[in-house]
């Protein structure tokens, strides 16, 4: 069976090169940025905050996979699955396995899912302006984290959900993918940010901003890094254009939000989008014209489950193969999501529908070009 999984996951793992060096925009851009009313950026890094060393915050051990959970069932059909898979009967091979909760999470009861414990140090923002505890009562109660600067109240329930999944641990799959900026550099989509100065100066002023997904992959330079000052076309689909949101630049720090945003993301066999609600940005504006910081907001949990499970290579649904490789069970995550959700309670049930999530990012100057078609759509609206 491992052979089957290995085949399916070759594309997921891929080859991971050296971490890309940071890019250095020219002084011209700095000068231009100091004068221009509108500034654009293209994201060069996009990553969850995965610790580089095991922080020892999973005392109950790591989550297991369907392959572990159904080890006997897998053992019984392993040879036949391999034979069918080798013969090209992929659906037939997968059909021999236990029911796939990654396709339909209702086929299995909750097998359990190990959550990260404690309030480890993670980057992020205090989204709810509260220091909360899981035993504080209410369906959306959760334990906050502390950041490296000692800031309390950091909300990051996504980390609590996935913190004890091996793919999210040091040197796990996602750690490696993010380290190499695979999602940005290897034919993925780029996230674009445009900010327009509406009052004050570019070092101390109010801005209006928008987030977009790019229309295509970024352009790399000869060293494999994102080219700064490149013109980046915005995606035609206005679904991936955020509304205008307000922000400010003060003391070299850009803060903005909240805003709802759907941002496409592609890495290997994952080709989906994030649906963030009440997303906020906090980033340091660096002297070379670039910025570095976090996006923090609430990730819709239905979208999050879809994001994790809708994994395809061609027509072949490989959500379970991905889960086996990353280190969780789809059924377990499905049932755990409502337990970790801490945002946007359903008005009727009180059940939270989103989980706080933090994305670390870096961005360099770029020219954000709106597509003709989307402009027309906006005018029609």
């Amino acid at each position: 069976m491992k052979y089957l999984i290995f085949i399916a996951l070759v594309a997921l793992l891929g080859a991971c090169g050296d971490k890309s060096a940071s890019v250095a925009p020219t002084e011209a851009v700095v000068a231009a940025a100091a004068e221009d009313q509108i500034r654009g950026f293209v994201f060069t890094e996009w990553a969850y905050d995965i610790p580089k060393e095991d922080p020892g915050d999973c005392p109950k051990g790591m989550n297991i996979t369907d392959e572990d959970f159904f080890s006997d069932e897998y053992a019984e059909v392993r040879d036949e699955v391999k034979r069918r898979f080798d013969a090209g009967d992929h659906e037939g091979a997968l059909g021999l396995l236990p029911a796939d909760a990654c396709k339909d999470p209702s086929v299995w009861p909750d097998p359990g899912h190990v959550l990260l414990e404690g309030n480890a140090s993670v980057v992020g923002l205090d989204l709810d302006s509260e220091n909360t505890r899981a035993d504080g009562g209410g369906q959306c109660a959760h334990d906050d984290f502390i950041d490296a600067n000692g800031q309390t109240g950091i909300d990051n329930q996504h980390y609590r959900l996935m913190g004890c999944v091996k793919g999210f641990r040091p040197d796990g799959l996602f750690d490696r993918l993010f380290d190499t900026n695979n999602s940005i550099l290897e034919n993925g989509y780029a996230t674009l940010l445009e900010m327009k100065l509406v009052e004050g100066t570019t070092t101390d002023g109010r801005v209006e901003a928008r987030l977009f997904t790019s229309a295509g992959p970024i352009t790399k330079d000869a060293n494999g890094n994102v080219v700064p000052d490149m013109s980046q076309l915005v995606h035609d689909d206005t679904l991936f254009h955020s509304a205008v949101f307000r922000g400010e630049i003060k003391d070299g720090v850009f803060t903005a939000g909240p805003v709802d945003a759907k941002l496409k993301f592609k890495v290997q066999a994952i080709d989906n989008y994030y649906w963030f609600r009440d997303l906020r940005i906090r980033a340091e504006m660096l002297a070379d014209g670039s910025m570095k910081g976090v996006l923090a907001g609430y990730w819709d949990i239905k979208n999050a489950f879809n994001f994790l499970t809708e994994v395809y290579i061609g027509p072949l649904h490989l959500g379970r193969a991905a889960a086996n490789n990353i280190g969780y069970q789809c059924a377990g995550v499905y049932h755990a999501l409502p337990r970790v959700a801490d945002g946007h309670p359903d008005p009727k049930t009180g059940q939270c529908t989103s989980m706080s999530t933090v994305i670390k990012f870096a961005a360099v100057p770029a020219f954000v070009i709106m597509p003709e078609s989307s402009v027309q759509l906006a005018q029609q609206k």
Partner: protein
Amino acid sequence: MRYMSRILIGASVLLLFGCGSADPSATGGPLAMRRLTGEQYRNAIEDAFGSQVEVAGRFEPDNRQEGLNALGASRVAVTRSGFEQYEAMARSIAAQATSPELRADILPCQPRSATAPDNACMAQIISELGRTLLRRPLTEEDIQLRAEVATRVAEEQQDFYAGLQLALASLMVAPDFLFRVEVAEPAPLPEQPERLRLTNLSLATKLSYFLWNRGPDETLLAAAERGELTQPEGLTREVDRMVGSEHLADGVSAFFEDVFVFDQFDELSKDVTQYPLFNNRVAADAREQTLRFVVDQLVTQQADYRSLFTSNQLPMTRSLGPIYGIPVRTVEGWETATLPAKQSRSGLLSHASFAMLHSHPGRSSPTLRGVFMREALLCQTVPEAPADVDFTQFTQNVAAVHKTARDRLAVHATQASCRKCHALTDPIGLGLESFDGIGKFRVSENESAIDTSGDFDGVAFSNAAELGQAFAESPLVSACLVENLYRYAVGRKQTNGERRLLRYLEDTFAQSGYQLPALMRNIATSEAFRTATAPAIEARTAKQEPTRTNAQSDSDSTTLTLTLSRSEST
């Protein structure tokens, strides 16, 4: 009679130039045969067979003389390996042209049977395509020899097209195809037997390669066959037609590509650790950007030549946007962009093409840029560097001490053997130091501010835009353009006897508002362009027979013996 001849000539000159002053009498230089450049070869193939036929192969390197490949074209031969390349290309092109997919579109007739000879059709194809390729009507002998061989092959192989391929390939390795062979006849001036005029067909070829960088079209060939190009009215009519043609853009582009030494792009490389933005696409776009800019300004917009040095608009691609620091909406293709004023960037001198071409692989070079400006744009001569120059000041490891190029060159100029030449090149070269080794704008080098101020022959400037303005206002710049264009047109350096002609061309260029097409027209219709001086020996016998350069006739052989023994005296 002699008196009447002069009257007729005078009348002709007036007809040529309307009411304006006539060009000073100047006898052209010696006859020459010039090897087609790679681009000219491709154009010839396209004219004969259409754009569907691919030309795949390597051409022998051009020979740059006096700053122009056009001058070296008459001093090159075809080497043995070069001929093999020509032959391979000819066979490939012939095979494509006779392929089942293309033959109906390309060939003027189809044989009665594809498996048998068809003499009439074979002769028609050879005659019609050969006329385009050789830029002249073929003789009976030209046609028959090829048709007989082709027929024999068609019979033996039972394949009409196998024979035709051989015939077509033979045309494409003929000296009259690979070389533009000038042929002259005695000018109607008995008192000047050494004075020759190009035959109508030779003049047609010379005109078309000067104005279009390609062979004559059917209209021009027909006019030449009717003998109209040696008549002022006919020449004027054809030159005006050609100057008004869309092909003029090709001719203008080819000229500036030569002047700007853009063939060096083929070997351009950069240290990607220093310039990670550089790649083949960027280099190709930078080269094309400048040529598009020139053609747009001078041909499409009919702008003043001097505006090339001040215009802040230029064609742009997505890949060049980061170099210029400007947004580019078009994903594939070109759009017009305006250079940002904050970069003090305008005109040719600030183009990325010049910056990257006249730099070292890992750093900019004010000296190389200065040499280019002096030699190509001002027609001045900068002596070669002495052999004992100490270049250590320019290596990166001393950048910590001498942070900017200006600092390093100041040290370098303390050497007496270097000072004189660098005084010529560096002040203007340093004016472009705000553009790094690939043309990206910068304000500092090694964290030290770059000073772009200087003096161009007495005119102070503070940045590249002002240097461009100074160039635009310099009479040397427009005079150099005239000189370069004239030399390019006639394929040789101007003679002492042509100095007055050049001054006249400069004057009329200025009077036209520095319109390049007008200058090209004046050169193309000048007496010097149409005439030649006879070699001393030939002059004594050049009364009846046309004088021909020493290429073998192509009519009896498909091989070449192409060694030029006569050097041009300039």
